[in-house]
């Protein structure tokens, strides 16, 4: 059974049709590359899944149950996590503090509950180890490489039992070696049975890590096929419109 099913989702802002009648499903442990030119509707689509926007039409189903999201916190509660393009990290805080930002662990009773530094360091350390990242929980994010910063942002999605992780351009602004590191992080998420949606402009990354590619153009889904049966040339044609649509 699919983890997430979108059926005939549309979104318009006034007269502008940002997303037009898009349907697709996500399986557990699957990486789906979501591609398309700027303004194709990728971000709008993802923001609907993340609870930032409300669809104008259509329905979403999570584990077979109807899914209605009013705010990003709702999505998080349902196990839908997002890694923002700018990673949303605070440079002045430690890696562990960033992982737990907004969901800090505390100990004690009643009004006198204090931050549980020990537990947060420990769990963050375990998450980094799971991700095979060399990030250390007590290090300040300020001094980290792009790959380590990605690891911190991704570890955040693993705090609760995430079912779906949406990643917005995770490889856009980092070095080649760090890209490999991030793609490995994505594989680790997949191996744990998490469905990953990878929004990217970078063809090699999508063909390297994704199982399936969905291409959007002008708000419509124009392709949804296995990576194995597609090619970068075909996807480029679909993105630009040189190829109209494939089954």
């Amino acid at each position, binding site marked *: 059974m699919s983890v997430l099913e979108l059926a005939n989702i549309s979104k318009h802002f006034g007269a502008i049709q940002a997303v037009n009648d898009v349907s697709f499903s996500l399986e557990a442990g699957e990486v789906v590359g979501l591609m398309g030119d700027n303004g194709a509707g990728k971000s709008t689509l993802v923001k609907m899944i993340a609870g930032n926007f409300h669809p104008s039409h259509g329905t979403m189903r999570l584990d077979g149950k109807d899914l209605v999201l009013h705010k*990003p*916190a709702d999505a*998080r509660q349902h196990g839908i996590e997002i890694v*923002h393009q*700018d*990673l*949303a*990290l*605070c*440079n*002045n*805080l430690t890696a562990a*503090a960033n992982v737990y*930002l*907004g*969901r*800090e662990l*505390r100990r004690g009773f009643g009004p006198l*509950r*204090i*931050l549980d530094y020990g537990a947060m*360091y*420990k769990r*963050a*350390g*375990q998450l*980094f*180890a799971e991700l095979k990242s060399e990030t*250390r*929980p*007590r*290090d*300040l994010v300020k*001094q980290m490489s792009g790959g380590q910063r990605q690891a911190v942002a991704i570890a*955040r999605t693993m705090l609760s039992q995430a079912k779906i992780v949406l990643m917005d351009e995770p490889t856009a602004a980092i070095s080649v070696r760090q890209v490999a590191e991030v793609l490995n992080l994505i594989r680790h998420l997949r191996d744990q049975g998490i469905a990953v949606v990878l929004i990217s402009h970078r063809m090699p990354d999508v063909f390297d890590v994704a199982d399936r590619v969905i291409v959007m153009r002008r708000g419509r889904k124009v392709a949804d096929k296995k990576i194995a049966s597609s090619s970068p040339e075909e996807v480029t044609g679909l993105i630009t419109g040189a190829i109209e649509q494939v089954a």
Partner: protein
Amino acid sequence: MAVTLDQTIAQKQHTFLSRLFANQTFWVVIAVILACLFLSVATDSFATSKNIFNITRNITFVAIVALGMTFVIITGGIDLSVGSVLCLSSMVLAVTMHAGYSIEVGILASIATALAIGAFNGLLIAYLGFPPFVVTLGMLSVARSLAMVASNNTVVFQFGPDHQKLLALGGGAWLFGIANPVLYMILLAGITGFILRWTKFGRHIFAIGGNEHAATLTGVPVKQIKVVVYMISALSAGLAGIIQTGWLGAVTTNLGNGMELQVIAATVIGGANLAGGVGTALGAIVGAALIEVIRNSLGLLGINAFWQGTFIGGAIILAVLFDRIRNFRRSD
């Protein structure tokens, strides 16, 4: 050799000493100690118990307000209205007590006034997106003017039936001969330090100063916290005002005039960063101490008082210079 997970988790970036040496507050403490040692040798009048009593007490008013300011500065904001809020709170206390009400009523009215002003500042900044500089600059003018209205611009020095209680509150020395204001300062510094280090609220304040957008995206209630932060700043000014009223035994409408600069200076000298994300309770106290020692020493060394501003301004610029040098080295 294989590194275990526990070792990785325990791994700190710096040793205790390297962290200490990289800490601006530490160097300011050294500066204060050196200055004190020098003055003890160079003058007869510095190391007298009377002078030490004076210095420690003078530090407190700036330090208490600087503690509140630290919260605001960590979020990346600024509160220019503290000097005027201090004056207005003092005046509300004085006028209420002068009218025959008890000290409890006076203090309640005074604190309520401060909190209301802080809430007003905070709401405009957090929910309407006003720049903190503009809102609090406006409030600097408004609060002082309200103090003049409340007192008809007169000096209030009679505080009704609880007159003596108020003077004891601010001017006494209830524990080991330490001036009461110093006791309040230590207590408030402890509370501030605890909040910043051990509470979720404190953690969120640092997050807002580090990256406000990230804090919002991760579900930190940024707007509410900003309002509270300005209320804390105003509250600290109000408390300092109450204590100072008890110590001085009189309130004039120029109380706390220009104090915002000393308070901001103390915070910055103590290591807080005006860009947000950095600041400590100890830093605020130590910064206030350095300013007061400089002021005091100029007097004792017989240097013309007109030079005070130059030395304090120089200390501010020097403190920020050290911060810049550290950042240059890091970016190399």
